């Protein structure tokens, strides 16, 4: 339920709160603080994604104190992070330098590094968003779109506009309508270069992206084509007729 609710919130799909309410009900029934904290962090994120900052705070208020004394590591981090994101500045309880803590102390780029290396593309993009740097934010936008995270993408666009950025790419990453694997136009571009034998770095140069964004696209392509590696990608793509156009 938690996953369904959070997915809906991130995609901008209807009714994230039905499943999130159910998840909270179940967590409260179990009366386990660790579950409640995890669910509350997710609800705080869902609130932030729909620009309801007050809700993000109220969802986590009573839990912050409880969690501090019980010390629920990363889940407390997530809760604290969403409160920080909506502007709450409170006493930081020192845990180890998790990516969230780096992020909250103004070292968003280092946070991005850690998330990337641990394989959390959504959180990595969130870190890029908070660097305040236009180039990084444009990359975050591309990543959110390729992940289908519409809500975060819209927040990124709003912030870019507020910064006065020009040339913000429009629209979601559109799926090329005549291809069976549901690849976006950008993913098809990357696929063709992968099949030509280019490395991620070379593709990044060709398309004016960062290597990490290219790696993100490549993982998504492998997943959509159900291919085990770059070598298998060519066979799969040929089988589906993706290389003909």
């Amino acid at each position, binding site marked *: 339920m938690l996953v369904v609710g959070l997915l809906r919130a991130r995609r901008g799909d*209807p009714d994230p709160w039905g499943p999130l309410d159910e998840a909270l009900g179940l967590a409260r029934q179990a009366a386990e603080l660790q579950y409640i904290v995890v669910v509350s962090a997710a609800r705080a994120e869902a609130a932030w994604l729909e620009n309801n900052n007050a809700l993000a705070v109220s969802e986590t208020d009573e839990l912050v104190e409880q969690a501090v004394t019980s010390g629920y590591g990363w889940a407390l981090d997530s809760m604290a992070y969403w409160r920080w994101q909506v502007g709450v500045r409170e006493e930081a309880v020192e845990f180890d330098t998790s990516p969230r803590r780096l992020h909250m102390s103004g070292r968003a780029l280092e946070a991005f590094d850690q998330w990337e290396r641990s394989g959390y593309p959504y959180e990595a993009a969130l870190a890029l968003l908070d660097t305040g740097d236009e180039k990084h934010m444009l990359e975050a936008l591309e990543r959110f779109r390729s992940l289908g995270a519409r809500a975060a993408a819209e927040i990124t666009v709003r912030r870019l506009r507020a910064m006065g950025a020009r040339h913000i790419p429009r629209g979601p990453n559109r799926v090329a309508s005549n291809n069976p694997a*549901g690849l976006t136009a950008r993913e098809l571009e990357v696929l063709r270069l992968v099949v030509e034998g280019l490395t991620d770095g070379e593709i990044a140069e060709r398309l004016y992206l960062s290597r990490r964004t290219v790696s993100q696209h490549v993982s998504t392509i492998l997943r959509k084509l159900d291919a085990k590696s770059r070598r298998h990608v060519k066979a799969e793509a040929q089988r589906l007729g993706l290389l003909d156009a």
Partner: protein
Amino acid sequence: MPRYIVERTFSDGWTLEHDDDGVTACLRLVDTNSDLGVTWITSFVAVGQRKSFCVYDAPHPEAIRKTAARNSLPIDRITQVTVLDPYFYRSAPITT
């Protein structure tokens, strides 16, 4: 069952012929939808814009996303809607 409007953009366009092939293609879409309880009610196609607004009844948004993926159809946005019809204005109060 909730009703949804699905907005889609066809970056390369999308053509449905008015012939037997077109009929077969449509029926295939309908069959795939029915696997997950998704019913395609009707669609409005924006003239010259490669964009459509499609009305569905479905158990939840995930069913729409899954069947759309199986049918190779893009999704920009899914919105849950209630139906407002001028000829039934007396039946019940409407709140948005």
